C-alpha cells in the first residue's frame, strides 16, 4: 500500500493540497464549533482550519454521507469522515445516488463517539481521542459513548479511497487505498509516497472481540409485543429516516396517501378495524424501514441520535440488519464493486431460509 507518515499538524497542508491541485473541487471536513464538532464544506483552501484534533474527535453530529446523497454533478467532492460514514457513502454509490468518480472518500480512524450534547458538556474531560480504558473510565462517571459505537467492530480507517491512520503520539499515516486515492495523494507536492505496510489485524480482532461482547449484552427485541413496547413512544416523526444515510427514496412510501392516510382515508381504516393507533402506521413504518435498510445499514446510529423521543433505535435497525446481512454474507460499505444483495442472485441458494 502506498502511504506517507506525517505529523498530525501536516494534515492541514495535505487537505489544502488536495484543493489546490484540484484533486477535489470541494472538501467536507469536520471543524470545531465552540466545544463541539460539525461539518463544513470548503472550496477555498485558505478557509481550511487546522483539522486536528477535530477529525479524530469522538463526537458524532450527522452522518456525512447525507451530504453527498444525490450528488449527481461531475464536480468532485471529498469527504473526510469516520469509517461508518464512508461505508454509508459507498452504499450510496452502489444505490446510484452518486457517481463513484465524483467522490473522494477519506476515512479517519475512529475511537467511538459521544452524542453531541454529551461531548459538548464534557469536552475537556473526554479530550480528542479515547481508548478503551478511557471509555470505561468515563462510563463510570456516567459519560457513555453511543451504543452504536460500542457495538461497532469496523472503526479502523481501511475503507474509502484514502485512510488516515492514527499512530501512537502525534503521528498519522495517510494511505491511498484505491488507485483514485493514490492518484489524489501523489498530486500533492509536499508529500512523497512510499510503500507502507500496515498490519492492523491484531487491532481489528481486539476491536471485534470487544464489540461482540457489548453486542451480546444488548437487550434483544425478540417478539412483536416487545417491539410494540420498544416503539411505545414513537411519534412517527420519521426523523430516523431523514438522518439515515442509506434511506434514499425521493418520495417515501410513508409520505404518500397509502402510507400516510389523512382525512377520509384515515377514518375508513379506523372504521374497518374499530380502533387504530394514531399517527397511523407506526409499526408498519418501522418494520418497512427495517426491511428497506436491512442489507445496507452500516450501523452508524444516526437514527438513534435523531430520535426526539430517545428510543434506542440502535437495538432495532443495525441489530436486525446484521442478521439479514449474515445470510447474504454481505458487509455493507466493504467493497464498492460488490453488488447489493437484492440486485443479484445465485441459482441455488437460501432454500433453508424460506420455510
Amino acid at each position, binding site marked *: 500500500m502506498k502511504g506517507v507518515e506525517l505529523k498530525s499538524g501536516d494534515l492541514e497542508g495535505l487537505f489544502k493540497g488536495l484543493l489546490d491541485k484540484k484533486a477535489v473541487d470541494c472538501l467536507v471536513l469536520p471543524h470545531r464549533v465552540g466545544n463541539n464538532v460539525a461539518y463544513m464544506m470548503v472550496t477555498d483552501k485558505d478557509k481550511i482550519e487546522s483539522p486536528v484534533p477535530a477529525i479524530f474527535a469522538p463526537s458524532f453530529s450527522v452522518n456525512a454521507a447525507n451530504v453527498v446523497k444525490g450528488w449527481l454533478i461531475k464536480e468532485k467532492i471529498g469527504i473526510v469522515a469516520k469509517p461508518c460514514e464512508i461505508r454509508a457513502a459507498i452504499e450510496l454509490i452502489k444505490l446510484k445516488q452518486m457517481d463513484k468518480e465524483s467522490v473522494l472518500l477519506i476515512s479517519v480512524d475512529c475511537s467511538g463517539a459521544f452524542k453531541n450534547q454529551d461531548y459538548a458538556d464534557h469536552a475537556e474531560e473526554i479530550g480528542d481521542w479515547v481508548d478503551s480504558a478511557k471509555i470505561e473510565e468515563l462510563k463510570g462517571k456516567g459519560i457513555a459513548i453511543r451504543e452504536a459505537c460500542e457495538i461497532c467492530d469496523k472503526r479502523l480507517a481501511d475503507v474509502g479511497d484514502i485512510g488516515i491512520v492514527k499512530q501512537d503520539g502525534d503521528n498519522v499515516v495517510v494511505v491511498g487505498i484505491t488507485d483514485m486515492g493514490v492518484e489524489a495523494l501523489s498530486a500533492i507536492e509536499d508529500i512523497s509516497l512510499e510503500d507502507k505496510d500496515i498490519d492492523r489485524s491484531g487491532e481489528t480482532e481486539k476491536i471485534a472481540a470487544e464489540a461482540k461482547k457489548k453486542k451480546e449484552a444488548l437487550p434483544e427485541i425478540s417478539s412483536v409485543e416487545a417491539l410494540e413496547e420498544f416503539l411505545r413512544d414513537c411519534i412517527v416523526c420519521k426523523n430516523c429516516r431523514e438522518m439515515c444515510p442509506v434511506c434514499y427514496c425521493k418520495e417515501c412510501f410513508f409520505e404518500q396517501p397509502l402510507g400516510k392516510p389523512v382525512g377520509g382515508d384515515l377514518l375508513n381504516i379506523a372504521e374497518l378495524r374499530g380502533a387504530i393507533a394514531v399517527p397511523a402506521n407506526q409499526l408498519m413504518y418501522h418494520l418497512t424501514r427495517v*426491511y428497506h435498510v436491512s442489507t445496507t445499514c452500516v450501523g452508524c446510529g444516526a437514527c438513534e441520535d435523531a430520535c426526539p423521543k430517545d428510543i434506542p433505535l440502535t437495538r432495532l435497525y443495525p441489530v436486525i440488519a446484521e442478521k*439479514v446481512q449474515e445470510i447474504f454474507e454481505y458487509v455493507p460499505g466493504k467493497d464498492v464493486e460488490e453488488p447489493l444483495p*437484492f440486485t443479484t442472485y445465485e441459482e441455488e441458494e437460501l432454500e433453508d431460509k424460506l420455510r
Partner: protein
Amino acid sequence: MGEETTKKEEEKFEPKIVGFTCNWCTYAAADLAGTSRKKYPPNSRIIRLMCSARLDPMFVLKALLNGADGVFFSGCHPGECHYIKGNFYARRRIAAIRTILKQLGLDNRFKSYWISASEGEKFANTMKGLSEEIKELGPSPLRGKVL
C-alpha cells in the same frame, strides 16, 4: 365450565390466511386443484401476482399487521420462472423478510412454497397442511390489536 368454553372457542378458531401466488404457476395450480375437485380448507384468500418478484415484502408485513393469522407465498420452482429470473430475486427478498420476522417470532406465520401449474394436488395438500399448522399456532398475536 370455563375450560369448556375456551375449548369450544379454540375449536371454533378458523384462521385467516392471505396468500400471494404467481399468475403463471401457483395460481394455475389452485385453479387445477379446483377443476380436479381436490378439497382444501376455504380459509385462505389468494391474491394473484404477475410474478413472484412482484411480492414486495411490505405486503407480507401489512397482512400480518392487519391481523392475518398466516401469510403464504407461492411461485414457480426456481429456474422455471415465466420471466426467467423473477423468482430468484423474490427468493432473496423472502429470505430477508423471514429473517426479520424470525427476530420477532412471526416467521412461523409466513410460509413460502414453490408450486408449479401442474401441481394441483400439491397445492391442495399444502393448503391443508398450512391450515393445520396455523390452527395449531392459534390466532395471531396481532389480531384485534390497536395498531
